[in-house]
């Protein structure tokens, strides 16, 4: 039995290795922010910024989504459920994911697992995105209940209906009054 290989920061120069097409480098990437394609049923867009302890947007974060399909199934045929976006190509420093709203899994409200990497983070962190329009399910969710009541709002994406469809907004605050709840999983 040997010990876990330590984590190290993704650093400032991950783009051509992990998200080459998004950043226009001549190399492929395994996945992008389009978890479901255009025209898919119930496609939603999720955007957000990643903010540092001064409230400044972080332009070199890398965000990954892992989620169930609309029926609440993980790893279902034809649904990868995984996406990746850097915050360095959007003029407002946002990540942008196009996906489908996950279905509820047994005993949980619908949620997306988010993995956060950046320069200045030696070990990646995990959080969860819950949906503002799931008030009843959120109130009964056992993981949300483990977060201090006054911080639960940091895990809930706000919803707006735009001409282009339903959009959710989820800012990730690394620090500060609104510091996002991060999980040790």
């Amino acid at each position, binding site marked *: *039995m*040997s*010990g*876990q*290989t*330590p*984590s*190290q*920061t*993704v*650093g*400032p*120069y*991950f783009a*051509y*290795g*992990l998200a*080459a097409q998004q950043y226009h*480098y001549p*190399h492929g990437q*395994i*996945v992008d922010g389009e978890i479901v394609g255009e025209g898919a049923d119930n496609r939603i867009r999720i955007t957000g910024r990643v903010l*540092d*302890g*001064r409230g400044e947007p*972080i332009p070199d974060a890398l965000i*990954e989504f*892992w*989620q*169930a399909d609309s029926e609440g199934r*993980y*790893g279902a045929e034809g649904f*990868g*459920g*995984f996406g990746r976006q850097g915050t360095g190509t959007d003029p407002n420093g946002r990540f942008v994911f196009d996906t489908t709203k996950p279905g509820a*899994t047994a005993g*949980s409200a619908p*949620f997306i*697992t988010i*993995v956060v*990497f*950046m*320069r*200045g*983070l*030696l*070990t*990646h*962190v995990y959080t969860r995105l819950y949906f503002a329009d799931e008030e009843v399910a959120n109130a009964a969710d056992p993981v949300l209940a*483990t977060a201090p009541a006054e*911080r639960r709002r940091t895990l809930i994406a706000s919803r707006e209906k735009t001409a282009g469809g339903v959009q959710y907004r989820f800012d990730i605050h*690394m*620090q500060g009054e609104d*510091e*996002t*709840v*991060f*999980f*040790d*999983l």
Partner: protein
Amino acid sequence: MINAPVSQRDWNSHPPLIHPPYTSTVLRGPTKPLIPLAHGLAESSGPVFGHESVQALDGDMTRNARRNGEPLGERIVVTGRVLDEDGRPVRGTLIEIWQANAAGRYVHKTDQHEAPLDPNFLGAGRCVTNDDGGYKFYTIKPGAYPWGNHFNAWRPNHIHLSLFGNTIASRLVTQMYFPGDPLLALDPIYLGVPEGARERLISRFSIDVTEPDFCLGYVFDIVLRGRRETPFEGGKS
């Protein structure tokens, strides 16, 4: 892919979220304790990127970006096994790789270090572990480069590696270093790792892996989280 829940992240092995000598951590690392999360389906599953994600030259960074010749620098081969904490091979898992060139310059547009780019070297690749958890890639030994963390700060030679393992909880991004590098003792990123675990990040030179008349060989084994044996009870200790 749904798997058995993995063991906890060992905070005696991983760097803390705020490590002031690495100055960027001060405004970016979360300050409040992480909240323990019992593993359900979401944490016991993860994306599957296997052999279909890798093309012929992806594991050879000395060849995957050639334009008019060979890249400059010292050609090396890096090989090793990806195992879990219990010594089981992690099979068919994707490794994504990126690094600076021999002069210590990244292709990344914001790298302003005044060292030459190499038209025949990109410094990005991929490989997938085999049934023994083994992997191998060819590249050019990366150079050291200065960075702005403190006066006269230089990063040791390193290669960035990103792995998935069997679940989203086994996800790992790390850096592989080279034996005998005098910059290691001065590098706040390397020194952010708890002392007892640091050496796991240093590859080992191997004459057996070295290919005669072709390239030096380094061995770097990677250990991901193992299977959880006891019910989850506590959080970060």
